[in-house]
């Protein structure tokens, strides 16, 4: 148990591709965590364009504990966080 650091790119491309919805999904986990036996703290930060969207586009981009998730979706990000919360 500890703090899980998550960075969500809130640049134009990633926002258009659903970054805000991913943020909402992460916030929904915070509530869920409170009901768990072993809650962990989730620290989410919206960060400016990670400059990964310039050439081929694989956004939205999210980092969970430093690890990059491309084509991020609510489900993949939530699963990555929950995995680390075990």
């Amino acid at each position, binding site marked *: 148990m500890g703090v899980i650091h998550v960075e969500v790119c809130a640049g134009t491309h990633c*926002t258009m591709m659903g970054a805000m919805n991913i943020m909402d999904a992460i916030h929904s986990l915070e509530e869920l965590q409170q009901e768990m036996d072993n809650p962990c703290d989730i620290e989410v930060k*919206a960060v400016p364009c990670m400059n990964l969207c310039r050439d081929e586009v694989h956004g939205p981009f999210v980092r969970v504990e430093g690890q990059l998730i491309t084509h991020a979706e609510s489900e993949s990000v939530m699963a990555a966080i929950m995995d680390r919360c075990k």
Partner: protein
Amino acid sequence: MRGLFTPITKIRRQVFTEVAKYAFERDLEQSDFNYFYESSYRIIPGEVATYRDSVFKERAIIRERIRLALGLPIRPSITHQPFTQGMAECATTEKKLDMPLVNVIPFACEACPTDRVQVSDNCRKCLAHPCTTVCPVNAVSIGKHAAIIDQDKCIKCGRCIEACPYQAILRFGRPCAQACGAKAIESDDLGRAKINQDKCVSCGLCIVACPFAAIADKSEIFQLITAIRSGETVFAAVAPSFVGQFGPLATPGKIVSGIKALGITRVIEVGWGADVGSLHEAEEFLRDVPEHKPFLGTSCCTSWALFARKTQPTLAHCIAQTHTPMVASAQKIKAEHPGAKVVFIGPCVAKKLEALDDEVRPYVDYVITFEELMGLFSAKQIELSDLPETDLATQASRDGRNYAVAGGVAQAVVNVIKASGHEQDVPVTRADTLFECRKMLALAKAGKLNGHLLEGMACPGGCVGGPGTLSQIPRAATAVKAFAQDSPYQTAGDNTLEALAP
């Protein structure tokens, strides 16, 4: 699907981006509309269908969406019509938009059942099977594997749903029809959704409700960008709900900079027009209620006002005659800058309809949504967080900015009435979604709301719940309220309403 980012949201935004990109980059003299044919391959790549039975169908749907995004009608399915038909005429700064605004793409519609009670595979074919016992029309029988409901007999009373110990029976309907408070969704001869245009008030909520992305509205982004590129002076009038729509880093000042970076000359807060509206509506209320009108309904929400006038024609005079904030703002812009074009940017599909009105046409040249604007930012690769803050030398009062959230409009009007020295409290009744508005109108008709100020909003939660938004409703509402607190003017009456800033 509201509040969630689904493949549908993605496709819709990709279409806007493709169209905007072409509009920004194309050779103004010599268009090549094959680009849009290729767009359907860029959006749906490969040979394997992802969402439907075939890629060909998926791409065909994209192509109709592109036509709508250009402002064109969808093509008939039974006769041949070239994909590019009409596109050359769309490349203009003139208004191209035409009715109907909200369209079902018939072959994208899956013809969902209108209302059905159905047994799911949760049924365990139990010995007691209370579902059969409670059914008043003997529609439930026990089949080989599960209970079966005879759809011809079923009267949808819901008793079997209540009785089942396994929650195996459910009732469902069409998402589009369930979203439509105007009851405008009917069926064509193949059972697909069809919009009754006499009833439709263009609220656009079916667009976000359909899980098969079968419904889309027309857009004016192509004409807007053509105007920008032809060197027209374009003013943007942004609806109060713009705050918080473009991500947590896109502050209001950065959004303004972003809009300017598209080639737009000036950005005006429509909250300014909301202040004008509040003053008018307060005046109308004090003058007419109850002597000439039993109550007064607000007029800023186009869908609500239209819905009220259509469904309760005898009460039509009770809806305020006040111009919508969009029109008030646009009139001011045109008065100060007669040559300028005006684009209204908002959460709303119905404003596109309003702008087709003969009285509004001279003032509002184009209407686009926040989601469409996002497509423009993306096409031009405008990184909002990198931009400087453009100071919004304040235009709108706190109350004007709060128009975006349900309850804000009535509050603004009441505050003006109070400030005018009116002694009595003004009773307020409000409703959001047309389902609630319908009930409110019924009460009004029955004489139960005499002396009230009625605030009607077609979208859930007010404008922040509009179909053209990107942000979730609660998040957007919080952002709007924080921005409202920043205004140095409290009420509409405090606003000096002189020349437009900045």
